[in-house]
């Protein structure tokens, strides 16, 4: 630790950093930032930085307002978009109560706690997300009352000289500058929709990376005069923005999902992990798909994973075992496709890990794989095959989560309560809306 701190203090000097932003995340997954001067960094390492947490969603209860931010020197990075003259750096923080206990409501702490639980069983959890988002001309709506995408290209289209192309190039460079490796980037199915895949990392680093990623994308968009959104379903009739997440467990240096010669090279642990994901998928959906809007993506047809089943390379299944070269045992993984780009990655990774571990702990049996396109089946067929639907709305997702011991245990009682309360409020607000759809279809007819 001290080496990293020394490195941070030295770099601040050498690079003439003027501000250091302390980053942390609220329960909903919004990035929060407090700037301190370089002179305060040493003290921040030693004692933390006190802030009034009561204003921050879910972070503290109103009466326990003071919390301390403890910057993690391993996450120190110079922010590339602020320019060298007025260099700004950032570090992610852990949050503690004044008596030095980790704050129960710090999402980063929730994930850390769950990673420790996995570590007690000898597992390290790795993830790699494929993050989709839309580029819009601006955040203002067009004349038709809809957002206006920057282009009308499609999947893997190369748009020469197009905004999206430049945009991805600039973003990828900036991400690499921040030490975040990009695996892949391309134009996605919707107009203005793009996807960038991050190279796999341990789940805590990855959750930090995702938070950084969102900021980078927004910053680059501003630089280029466009607007980027991670809203799960911004355009009617166009694909939503998912965050398919590949997950794997390692025992030491070995991939615990890999077993040479097994079906799909998938070990028993891998099968049980999937079984856990499937069994608990409905109750964790309020975390992996946390907004009213999330369910518009989840039930938009196409390739959205609406039904609880798994398949090998089946693009309609909730959990997919991707194709990879049999020689690459280390890259064995499972892909969870429900997650959307607006999830709080700390909490979402926590519940995915917990569901999978539950499967391993209790030795769940993996149901037979889905070979058809699940969307083309009839309701009765799906029932017969045992493919349960994911919740169809935030409301039903909340009800399922409310009954879930798994989620309560994973998040801790206080975060669990807070999320429920917050999401119920969101649902109530949504329900009170009268939508353009209703006006269009009802006003004249009734």
């Amino acid at each position, binding site marked *: *630790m*001290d*080496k990293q*701190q*020394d490195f941070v203090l030295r770099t601040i000097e050498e690079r003439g950093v003027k501000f250091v932003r302390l980053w942390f995340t609220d329960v909903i997954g919004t990035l929060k930032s407090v700037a301190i001067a370089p002179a305060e960094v040493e003290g921040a*390492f*030693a004692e933390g930085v006190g802030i009034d947490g009561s204003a921050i969603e879910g972070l503290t*209860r109103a*009466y*326990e307002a003071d919390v301390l931010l403890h910057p993690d020197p391993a996450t120190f990075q110079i922010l590339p978009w602020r320019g060298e003259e007025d260099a700004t750096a950032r570090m992610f923080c852990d949050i503690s*109560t004044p*008596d*030095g*206990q980790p704050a*129960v409501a710090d999402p980063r702490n929730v994930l850390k706690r769950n990673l420790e639980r996995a570590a007690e069983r000898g597992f390290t959890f790795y993830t790699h997300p494929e993050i989709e988002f839309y580029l819009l001309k601006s955040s203002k709506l067009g004349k038709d009352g809809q957002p206006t995408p920057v282009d009308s290209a499609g999947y893997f289209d190369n748009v020469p000289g197009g905004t999206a192309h430049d945009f991805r190039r600039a973003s990828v460079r900036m991400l690499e500058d921040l030490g975040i490796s990009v695996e892949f980037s391309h134009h996605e199915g919707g107009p203005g929709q793009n996807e960038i895949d991050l190279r796999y990392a341990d789940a805590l680093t990855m959750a930090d990376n995702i938070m950084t990623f969102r900021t980078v994308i927004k910053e680059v968009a501003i630089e280029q005069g466009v607007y980027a959104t991670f809203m799960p379903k911004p355009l009617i009739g166009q694909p939503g923005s998912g965050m398919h997440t590949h997950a794997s467990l390692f025992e030491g240096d070995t991939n615990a999902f890999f077993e040479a010669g097994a079906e799909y090279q998938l070990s028993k642990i891998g099968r049980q992990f999937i079984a856990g994901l499937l069994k608990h998928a409905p109750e964790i959906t309020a975390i992996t798909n946390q907004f009213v809007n999330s369910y518009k993506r989840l039930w938009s047809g196409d390739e959205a994973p609406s039904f609880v089943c798994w398949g090998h390379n089946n693009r309609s299944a909730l959990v997919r075992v991707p194709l990879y070269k049999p020689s690459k045992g280390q890259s064995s993984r499972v892909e969870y496709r429900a997650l959307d780009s607006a999830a709080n990655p700390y909490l979402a990774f926590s519940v995915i890990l917990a569901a999978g571990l539950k499967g391993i702990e209790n030795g769940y049996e993996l149901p037979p794989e889905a070979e058809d396109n699940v969307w083309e089946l009839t309701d009765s067929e799906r029932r017969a095959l045992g493919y349960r639907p994911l919740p169809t709305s935030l*409301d*039903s997702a909340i*009800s399922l989560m*409310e*009954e879930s011991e798994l989620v*309560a245990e994973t998040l*801790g*009682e*206080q975060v*669990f*309560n807070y999320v429920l309360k917050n999401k*119920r409020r969101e*649902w*109530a607000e949504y329900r009170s809306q009268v939508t353009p759809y209703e006006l269009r279809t009802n006003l004249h007819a009734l």
Partner: protein
Amino acid sequence: MSRGRTSLTDLARLGFSDLRGAQRLLEQVEPTLHALFGRAADPDQALRELLRLREHGGGADALLADSDAAARLIRVLGASAGLAGFFERHPDELDVLSSRVQRLPDAESLHASLLAGVQGSAPEAAVDALRVRYRRELARIAAWDVEQEDPIAAVDSVAATLADLAGAALDVALDVARASVAGDKQELAATRLAVIGMGKAGARELNYLSDVDVIYVARASGDLTGDRAVELGTRLAKALTRILSGPSSEPALWDLDANLRPEGRDGALVRTLESHIAYYERWAKGWEFQALLKARPLAGDRELGARYCESVAPFVWSSASRENFVESVQGMRERVTANIPAAQRDVQLKLGPGGLRDIEFTIQLLQLVHGQTDPEVRQRATLPALKALAEHGYIGRAEAAEFADHYRFLRLLEHRLQLAGLSRTHLMPRDPEALRVLARASGVAANEPELTARWQRTKTQVRSLHERLFYRPLLSAVAALPDEDFALTSDQAVARLAAIGFVDPAGALRHIGALTAGISRRAIIQRNLLPVMLQWFADGADPDHGLLVFRRLSERLGESHWYLRMLRDSSGAAHRLTQVLASSRFVSDLFLTIPEAVAWLEVDADLAPRTLDQLIEEGEAIISRHGDDPDAAAAGVRTVRRREILRAAIASILGLLSVQELGRALTDVMTAAIRSALRIARTEPDGIEFGVIAMGRYGGRELGFGSDADVLYVYRPAGAEPEAARVRAGELVRALGALTEDFSVPLELDAGLRPEGRNGPVVRSLDAYRAYYERWSLTWEAQALLRARGVAGDAELLRGFETVADEVRYPERLSEQDIREVKRIKARVEAERLPQGADPTRHLKLGRGSLSDVEWLVQLLQLTQAAEVPSLRITSTLGALEAAVEAGLLTAEDAGVLREAWLFASRTRSALMLWTSKTSDVLPVDRVQLEGVARLLRYPAGSASRLEDDYLRVTRRARQVFERTFYAASPAG
């Protein structure tokens, strides 16, 4: 072959165990040598090993030719099978025993010897050569050690020499490493590496065989960069481990343990000096500073090592003023006692109660506290530290001498046990034969029973060491103690008190002064007792308050004979007193009004609740004593009530009373108070019958501390005119209120559950109740009546009331509409009764899944089913819950969840009242409050967050059951 044969009797006298076997084997040994075995710790082993050695060449025979050398050989072989094995492997080394070891070698000569041992060996051979030479020197030290007349006195110097030997081994190993590791020779030469000794190696008090704790510091010289120096230093350090502890044909010397380094196992093995300092400045935990107390340049670059030690010293000596020093000390103590397998507890020389670690812990704590301001006590080793503490007036000289002896005695046993097998053990043998050998080896006891007795005696005294060295001197700061030869200054005492968790140590010191000043019997007894009581107070959640109340209590009880006797003779009672006072404001406040209650602490039976009959009888006696003075009688009855509440409170803190038993006890106390008051109010026949009906938690026998008593009043004319009867009943109600009033422990009789609530008349005749319930009864009234139970007044009338109540509360059939009404009211109560801004998940009474959820669910079952199921006609919540399970109305699993939540919330409420002495129905958010409550709920220290999480989980589950069973299929929002 009888020539020179030694008789069995003689062999027994020499100390052989297998006499016939020895007689046979001794035939191979010169008879003149036989007597020499008498001085071996284990003659049988010595003989066996000697014969075996002779098979390995002439070395042994050469020694046997000289009786002096023969004696030495036999002693060493009898003391150490480990060394015997070494000589078997290397018979050439036997010559080390040929001449008498005049004195222990110094560090320089050890280094020279080891260096000579490896001289000229190729790097591969050097490892074995070094190890062999090390053991040869070890044999020399052992030979000196076992020949000492006073082995206890020799412990210090043997331990120091063993540390020097380890240092020499490290130094020579480092030379070997430099010659053998891969890398540019010039760069290697420019890499300076210091090996810092930690633990016993650092303190120069090493055992025959223990881990050698080290920390590495590297530094570049010449053109080398710092990073490169660390890299090469790491290579050298790894090579050291391989050379000294790795596998080879000559076994490893000991484990080289570098885990005390910054970040422990996960940290870099070697760091620069600057990097070490940066770590200690920013990251190190309390115990790491305590470990640094022992740091000493042990091998390698001495100049660099000395700079390291100088640089870290300030951290050590300021650690006691760090914020979390108290926790870290508590943690240290726990680490000492935890992790000992139960089966080893009684044979642990080092870790068990009264073991070496106890001595080391106390001395280090004293050093850390006083070394802040006094450089004189900054010693590395235990014995010099003990001496310095005594010389500079922190502990008594006599005690210091006594504990130094105990320490040496325990170390001597440890040395002998380790020497025997050259193995790292801290366990006393259980086998009597092994104990006999140990007695002979140590030379401090003639036989096994004597040794065991002395060890037990030592352990007992060491157990009192902490109290005698740490706590007792605190008294000397405030009162001249006639039997002490020194006195702490008050600053020194304040530093000690702060180190064990007193928030206001200066205040605590004043209390100690007041408690121990003077020559009264009380002061003398308290002087004896206070040191250990301080320790107990420090274990509690609020030591400051506990000590303050103890002082006041003691002032009030003054010279009471029984009090002094109890303090003097019953440490159990004194311990309980500290426990109760440091954990409960409620009890400490009450205690001050009833100091005699201290006497109960001695006997469990005195803490058992009095039965209702006993209480009534005592009330009768008081009333008849004060027949003509109702105020005096009422005062007497009040005193009984307070006293009994205190008794129940103490018993519940000490874990002698479950929360259900507590509810029943407090209910009986309430009933006795009401009945006695009624007796005082009704001295003559007044032409009416009158009764008090218990309702709510009182009716359910579930009262807590500070609960109001819900009641109804009923009367029936018996001779008097109806109007006169009504007036009289009204008078009685007022009289009851006045007679039971108590300002210090409030007793509130609340008739709010009567028909028509606050708008109805306070008292009604039985006929009026009947008429009312027949005509007007609302469902909530029926529900309230479920817990109605006659408690005081005329028995006929009470029965009459219960009969009326039965009609209402156990209806043949409850209409759908009535059921809906109950549910609706519950829903409204949830929304409206909760205080503004209260967090429903934390409200113990009306909150999510807490008391009222469970109670309403049970009551709805009773209203709908009790007509069919007579076992449901019961006023207690848990009783009815059980009946509902038996009747198949609720699954055992659901009932279990509800029961757990009800008990948890009830216990928390009770703990909250005990801790704060204020009624509150909300789980606190303040962490100090949570901690106090958690301790009363028997959580270990530092469990505030755990209590919160547990409570929220248990009530969340209860709420799920409630939603499912009470509201049933509630429509989703």
